[in-house]
């Protein structure tokens, strides 16, 4: 069992190498089968790791075990949160590969190879116990992601999206590497447990704080937290649909997982005196992301870009949970990430069905065209309606349990009782926009020509086009249906909440982590998980009603609404200026990145 630990990464990398070598030598069905088989094998291995990892299991490469309390070797340190995230990555990659069997008209086996490299990097990122390897897997994940974004390299959009993505994220990862180098200079160690125990006992000084800022900066760029988020919408709008499924479902969330891992295993002890300041900073960033993402989501008409902004909004909510820096917050975010990933994956796949059929994902061009009742479009309609309601936390479906847990954790933390209102607002706006799309595309509701286009739509964007098809292949229906059912019902699986709460408690147990890496038997940890209370149902009801109101406001003939002229002008002007900030210009994005990091640094220094 122990020897299995590095195997998921090895299988994925070998599969990728095979597919790269077999490019154009094997027929397409063969390469597709190999790719899918590798992803499923990784999935099975990851599930085995989850079962095995009730305590932290540590694998030392080459048998270089720590001697005399010094870890020189490189380790995979697997706990249930890490193995669980790896499993989620494998699920999403398997679903995306199944979907892409028929999504592309022509695709070389290099696409499968890149997807498997991406998977290997994500799994390695989840399992590693070494800070420098964390960076290496992070960078491997990024490079695979850049190449996948630019897969349709003959078009201008993917080129620009990939360039923005690559430059922004590279700067972020160099910041992270600088932070890692500073920690190595201070402690002489790269193993996270070793760095953690070397830093524990001294309060964080300037160098440790700068290192934290730089590592956090790199991860927050990847997590697309406002104001470091600009690349995400560009990359999502142009990347192929199966790739978007992975970006929104796991890649962005993995960056937050990395932040939690580094915080709890390395920096929790030295930062103990500054916990309040860090908490305020992270939650403020989360609130800003939730709101900006939601407002920008409402303003889109390109469905993939709209879903991308919804992801930014949800990532903000996950950061809020993480930023509480408590076990309960961590567990809530973990549960929320799982439920969101499956639903968002299904939604992107449904958008892909529309793109495959009609050659466009423009909400207004598609008005009423989803009505004809063949299976593909009916499934897409079901995914949009149920996915929208699931993201609105309709009890007991979708994100209800994760969102309730997060709200519970917030109301139990003094001073943050108001944050659930932000969650309700963000969820209502993003879910309402998804319901708006469902109503317009699949029922033909709403005005024929977009009025108020300066307020509610983006006109400068060219629709993404493929050659249209007249029917939807079965695998493109099966994959989103599986993800949708999983996403709607995963929350009610018995024992899941308690399991995630226990795993989060173990991840947040710094002393236990260090002891386990150095071979001591692990002690027990207390893992409270709050029951669902009446307040959760009230907040969920508010979210669902809010979402229906957002959709209704946009779909009911706009002429029948009377908005005072001054309010309308102010709203329009602020929306236009917010949209202008998303300029598509990578120079601006880097300037925002620097300004954002400086602001976060100032907040950390002042608090």
């Amino acid at each position, binding site marked *: 069992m122990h020897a299995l630990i590095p195997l998921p990464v090895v299988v994925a990398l070998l599969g990728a190498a095979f597919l790269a070598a077999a490019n154009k030598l094997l027929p397409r069905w063969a390469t597709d089968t190999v790719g899918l088989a590798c992803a499923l094998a990784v999935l099975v291995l990851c599930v085995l790791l989850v079962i095995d990892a009730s305590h932290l299991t540590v694998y030392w490469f080459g048998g270089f075990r720590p001697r005399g309390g010094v870890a020189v070797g490189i380790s995979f340190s697997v706990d249930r949160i890490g193995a669980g995230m790896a499993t989620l990555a494998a699920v999403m990659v398997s679903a995306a590969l199944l979907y892409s069997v028929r999504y592309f008209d022509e695709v070389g086996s290099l696409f499968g190879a890149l997807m498997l490299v991406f998977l290997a990097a994500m799994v390695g990122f989840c399992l590693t116990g070494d800070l420098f390897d964390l960076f290496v897997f992070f960078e491997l994940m990024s490079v695979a992601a850049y190449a996948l974004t630019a897969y349709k390299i003959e078009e201008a959009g993917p080129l620009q999206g990939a*360039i923005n993505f690559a430059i922004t994220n590279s700067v972020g990862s160099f910041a992270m590497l600088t932070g890692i*180098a500073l920690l190595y200079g201070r402690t002489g160690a790269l193993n996270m447990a070793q760095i953690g125990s070397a830093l524990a006992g001294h309060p964080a000084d300037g160098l440790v704080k700068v290192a934290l800022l730089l590592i956090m900066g790199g991860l927050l760029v990847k997590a697309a937290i406002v104001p470091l988020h600009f690349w995400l919408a560009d990359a999502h709008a142009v990347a192929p649909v199966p790739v978007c499924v992975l970006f929104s479902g796991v890649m962005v969330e993995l960056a937050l997982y990395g932040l939690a891992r580094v915080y709890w295993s390395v920096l929790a002890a030295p930062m103990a005196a500054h916990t309040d300041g860090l908490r305020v900073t992270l939650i403020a960033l989360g609130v800003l992301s939730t709101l900006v993402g939601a407002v920008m989501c409402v303003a889109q008409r390109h469905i993939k870009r709209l879903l991308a902004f919804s992801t930014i909004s949800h990532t903000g909510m996950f950061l809020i949970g993480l930023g509480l820096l408590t076990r309960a917050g961590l567990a809530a975010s973990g549960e929320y990430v799982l439920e969101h990933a499956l639903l968002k994956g299904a939604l992107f796949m449904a958008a892909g069905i529309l793109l495959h059929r009609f050659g466009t994902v423009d909400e207004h061009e598609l008005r009423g065209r989803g009505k004809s009742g063949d299976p593909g479009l009916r499934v897409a309609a079901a995914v949009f309606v149920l996915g929208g309601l699931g993201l609105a936390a309709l009890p007991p479906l979708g994100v209800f349990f994760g969102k309730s847990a997060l709200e519970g954790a917030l109301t139990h933390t003094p001073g943050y009782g108001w944050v659930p209102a932000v969650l309700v607002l963000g969820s209502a706006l993003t879910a309402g926009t998804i319901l708006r799309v469902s109503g317009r595309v699949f029922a033909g509701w709403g005005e024929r020509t977009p009025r108020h286009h300066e307020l509610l739509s983006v006109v*400068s964007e060219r629709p993404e086009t493929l050659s249209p098809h007249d029917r939807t292949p079965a695998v493109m229906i099966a994959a989103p249906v599986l993800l949708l059912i999983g996403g709607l019902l995963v929350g009610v699986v018995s024992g899941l909440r308690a399991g995630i709460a226990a795993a989060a408690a173990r991840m947040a147990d710094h002393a236990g982590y260090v002891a386990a890496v150095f071979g001591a038997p692990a002690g027990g940890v207390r893992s409270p998980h709050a029951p669902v209370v009446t307040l959760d149902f009230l907040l969920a009801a508010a979210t669902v009603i809010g979402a229906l109101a957002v959709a209704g406001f946009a779909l009911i003939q706009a002429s029948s609404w009377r908005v005072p002229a001054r309010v309308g002008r102010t709203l329009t002007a602020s929306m236009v200026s917010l949209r202008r900030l998303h300029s598509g210009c990578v120079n601006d994005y880097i300037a925002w990145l620097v300004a954002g990091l400086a602001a976060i640094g100032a907040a950390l220094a002042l608090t």
Partner: protein
Amino acid sequence: MSVLAYGTAGWLFLVGLYGIVSSRNLIGMVICLSIVQSSTYVLLLSIGYRRGAAAPIFADIPPGSRAVDPIVQALTLTDVVVEATVVALLLALAVQAHKRFGTLDPNELTPLRG
């Protein structure tokens, strides 16, 4: 000596960032990006530097004698590989942009705005 090395690393990082923000040319941007990354090489190597120490190759010096830290050198090598990958990919995108659209200004590609 060490202040100079750390100062150089910081300077390279910032001047590279300034270059990326102000550049209008993809090739220029990629070069500035590799300048930012160069700062991590300088930083890593100066962290491992020991005054008067030999290279960490114990074939011709007795074991136990003073040597610079070999780990940061391994890290720097990995870092170089990472840079080669990122730069190669970005230059491929730049070549493609020039070939298809006759421009190296990333902002002249399609408008991904709002």
